[in-house]
């Protein structure tokens, strides 16, 4: 049975890496968050809604979302040049799309909501960690959301279906599948498959991904709540 398979870092197939989430880490941004999943570290800042210039890019009846996913040169095994790569361009698009579904864009016509993602250290699952941080940052900025978006990747590695791949597993995997969902509304907003799976394997992997997303969602909520429970009235 798959459950006896022990992974390169000692985890079981359905185990997440250690997670750390912090909200409101930057002062200038309207909202911000920092997320660690294993060694992957991402920082997200949100600005907006704010007036959009040039005006012709703006939409008369809703806000537009601009998203930049960027990896720091020191974040990867080999130094990555600072110029946007094709992968970063694609990930900026899919992350933007995954988050846009959650935002009440129609509340802020003619504005833009700008999301800046910096990957500080990349060890697999960067787009998922980014989405998790974006949700926290948007909530932190007080932008009205339908739900938090929660994301994790699953994959097929040496024949086993596993959850939350690190970079080593990602490179060797037969398939890797990042997923994001708005749990309250049952809406999948990110779904990609890179690799080869049978329909049966896909079903198994996807169901595991949803379970993983639910756990991530729980941690995101705990993180947001803890901001307030830790502030008691101070007698000074």
């Amino acid at each position: 049975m798959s459950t006896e398979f022990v992974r390169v870092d000692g985890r079981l197939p359905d185990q997440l890496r250690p997670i750390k989430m912090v909200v409101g880490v930057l002062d200038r941004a309207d909202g911000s968050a920092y997320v660690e999943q294993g060694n992957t570290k991402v920082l997200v800042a949100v600005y907006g809604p704010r007036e959009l210039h040039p005006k012709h890019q703006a939409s008369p009846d809703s806000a537009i979302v601009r998203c930049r996913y960027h990896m720091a040169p020191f974040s990867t095994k080999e130094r990555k040049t600072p110029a946007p790569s094709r992968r970063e361009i694609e990930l900026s698009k899919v992350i933007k799309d995954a988050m846009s579904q959650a935002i009440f864009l129609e509340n802020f016509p003619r504005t833009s909501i700008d999301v800046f993602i910096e990957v500080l250290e990349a060890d697999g699952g960067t787009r998922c960690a980014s989405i998790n941080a974006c949700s926290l940052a948007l909530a932190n900025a007080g932008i009205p959301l339908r739900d938090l978006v929660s994301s994790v990747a699953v994959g097929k590695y040496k024949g086993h279906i596993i959850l939350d791949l690190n970079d080593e597993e990602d490179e060797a995997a037969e398939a890797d599948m990042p997923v994001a969902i708005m749990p309250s509304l049952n809406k999948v907003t990110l779904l990609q498959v890179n690799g080869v799976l049978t329909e049966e394997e896909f079903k198994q992997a996807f169901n595991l991904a949803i379970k993983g997303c639910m756990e991530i969602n729980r941690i995101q909520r705990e993180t947001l709540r803890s901001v307030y429970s830790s502030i008691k009235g101070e007698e000074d």
Partner: protein
Amino acid sequence: MSERKIVLPGELLVEGGEYQPGSNVFKYGERLYASKIGILSIVKQTVSVIALHGVYEPKVGDTVIGKIVDVGAFSWTVDIRSPYTAVLNASDYFKGRFNPAKDSLIKALKPGDMIVAQIVDFDRTKNPVLTVQGPGLGGVTKGIIVELSPSKIPRLIGKKGSMINLLKKEGKCQITIGKNGLIHIVGEKPEYEELVAQAIKKIEREAHTTGLTDRIMKFMKKGRELSVN
């Protein structure tokens, strides 16, 4: 009625057709969900969330405090800390008797100047339009300006003005509240203005806690004692 319960975006609040969504709450089927982090408030059949974060969304009739950021031929552009910059027309400032040959906009108000104004027009298709005609409105020349999250303004005012009146009395200051999260404080001494500013910051941090009014009262009294010495 649940007071002081903190809810998060996407959190299910109530289920059932008899409830209506209030601010920061949306309906999906028969269920009501929160759209912002805030405190749940159910009054009669209306479910609202008092947001703990968020930008100022302009409303006609609101008093706001803004900063002049640009001067045009017939109007000033005013930053009111909302997604939309506001417009103050020369015709409003010069009470309808604007003479481009004689009156200079930049001599009247220049970038960096602060004004207390009221929003007279705003909808989805245009930016907010301001007026400085009215009691208490106009340029700001003395005192200090404090910024806090607009969502905390209700807490700053308090039930029937209890909190703001406390600050005015104990701080011996005139306080003008801009709904956009800017507060103008003018006091007898700079130390009093500073004390009130710190009290406001404390209210912002602890807006979601109980017993805040008493703690602020203690804070103000202690602060006044210290400043006397």
